[in-house]
């Protein structure tokens, strides 16, 4: 394999880092202190033909413009909302992501968060570890998960995988997206508010773009209501976070299972004190099996690029 100069923006995953180092000429941005990143880029600009980034880091116009030799950006994520795609198109830079391989993990976690939030599994675990077994006189009731109405924003790969799991729990499934898919088993709603109004559990499973930014706003949250649960395995940017926090604190929203936040890894203090939320540290695709498959897809895309073969999973 020729010595493709690859810039990795942050460590992300050991296996990926090792393999990139083994197969290509790897440059690691974090080897330079943060205030010297620009110098590092300038010094290495000519040899960098590929960038490997993650969902959180992305690749903005400043980075792209600093790398005149850049041919491909391979994102170790399915979301590429932080990659400046229009700039890439202008420059003829290819962009790849990691769809498909993480679908199951993310769908699994979405359902795991929904059950955990409704049945308060982490709370029970915490109370027991604190030595408080709730005795018969004061037993806490939580509401049943199966049969609850599940509403999914975005019926793409991940949305469909969540829907299929919901069916295993006899949950009636409905969805919103721009286009009615006329799905035999799932009910379409033309607006997110109507979807929320008719759901007990609302799951965000669409990609983040200009149309979907803050798609879960105050109106949607209130339509979901005091017994409704929001599950977000999309992006923090999908939700009006201050509004979400205030609704949870006030009881205008029943509960939430969150894997993503507006400003990771910072999670609003107010959420940390609540018993009706389950907080996950953006680990939707975080199984060993899936991260290995994602890394292999990044490596496969880079190799295809070098060999001038069709890219495996191009976005641009």
């Amino acid at each position, binding site marked *: 394999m020729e010595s493709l100069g690859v810039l990795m923006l942050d460590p992300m995953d050991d296996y990926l880092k090792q393999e990139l180092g083994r197969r290509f000429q790897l440059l690691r941005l974090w080897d330079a202190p943060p205030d010297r990143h620009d110098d590092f880029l300038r010094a290495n600009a000519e040899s960098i033909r590929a960038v490997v980034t993650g969902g959180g880091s992305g690749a903005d116009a400043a980075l792209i413009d600093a790398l005149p030799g850049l041919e491909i950006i391979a994102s170790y994520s399915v979301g590429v909302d932080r990659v400046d795609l229009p700039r890439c198109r202008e420059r003829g830079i290819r962009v790849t992501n990691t769809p498909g391989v993480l679908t*199951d993990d993310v769908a699994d976690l979405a359902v795991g968060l929904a059950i955990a939030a409704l*049945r308060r599994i982490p709370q029970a*675990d915490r109370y027991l570890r604190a030595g408080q077994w709730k005795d018969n006189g004061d037993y806490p009731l939580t509401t049943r998960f199966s049969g609850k109405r599940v509403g999914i924003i975005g019926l793409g790969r991940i949305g469909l995988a969540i829907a299929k799991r919901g069916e*295993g729990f006899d949950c009636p499934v409905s969805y919103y997206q721009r286009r009615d898919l006329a799905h035999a088993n799932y009910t379409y709603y033309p607006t997110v508010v109507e979807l929320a109004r008719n759901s007990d559990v609302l799951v965000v499973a669409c990609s983040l773009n200009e149309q979907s930014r803050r798609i879960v706003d105050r109106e949607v949250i209130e339509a979901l209501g005091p017994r409704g649960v929001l599950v977000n395995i999309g992006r923090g940017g999908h939700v009006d976070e201050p509004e979400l926090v205030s609704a949870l604190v006030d009881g205008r929203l029943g509960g939430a299972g969150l894997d993503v936040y507006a400003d990771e890894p910072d999670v609003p203090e107010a959420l940390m004190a609540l018993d009706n939320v389950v907080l996950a540290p953006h680990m939707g695709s975080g199984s060993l099996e899936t991260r290995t498959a994602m890394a292999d897809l990044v490596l496969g895309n880079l190799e295809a690029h070098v060999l001038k073969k069709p890219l495996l999973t191009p976005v641009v």
Partner: protein
Amino acid sequence: MPPPALEPAASGDKPLVLLAQPLFPEFAAALKGRYRFVLAADADAAEAAEARVLLVPGLKTVTAEHLDRLPALGLVAATSVGVDHVDLDACRHRGLAVTNAGEAFAADSADYGVGLVLAVMRRVAAADSYVRRGRWATDGDYPLTTKVSGKRVGIVGLGRIGSLVARRLAAFGCAVSYHSRSPKPSAPYRFVATARELAADSDVLVLSCALTEETRRMVNREVLEALGGGGVLVNVGRGGLVDEPELVRCLREGVIAGAGLDVYENEPHVPPELVDMDNVVLSDHRAVLTPESIRGALDMVAGNLDAFFAGRPLLSPVTL
């Protein structure tokens, strides 16, 4: 001590039902006015002689001695699904009927079992604590966990609860096999003759069978070793199904990868060693504590009592 009844209850009076312990508030409220409830321990001689039904709220132990005090007894009605707290041999010898909560708890048990599988393998509970302690900001991303979809699931006990667990996990693309006393020909899953073999072929072992003399401590060292270093145990059955000290040893030694437990051998005692483990999810026997299950159980109990007193077939008799 209430004054003794002077004559037999006139027809039209509410039937007498003895209680092994006080009813849950929801049950008491719903059944009030339909039956005459007396705590068994408070029953006078006439009531003990008259009582045809003993209602057992919760998991109160009912022994042969308790039953012997009630010569007119025909029915022991449990509010739970598991009836291992009742001396079933004594019931069989006396020719008593025993009823349980039937399907009332199946959905919630199964949901909770699957919730525990996901919570253990994807570390949902441990990661929630990680975030609340501020460690995401200070220590970085949570370590990689184990994928659930597509894994091999072994279910011990393919009754109402086990069947629902199977259906739910099959929707995650899991290959489901099961072990029970005998194969269920209508079940679309692979039957395995022993618990040990099932464990050997599984990544996740879910316990959802009744506790009997045959199943007591069925999950022992041998079964845990067969489940193996990547394997996870989830118990929504009874604590007595597992050799608990051995389970703790196996978790400590890494003989298995993790466990999700809603039940323990000696509730409310939870082995203290488990409290420090990240690869365990602990729950205080609350799998079925939902208003939906309680309403369902209430319907079953009331339905069984009504049927018994009307001489109709019982809704959910337990085979003794």
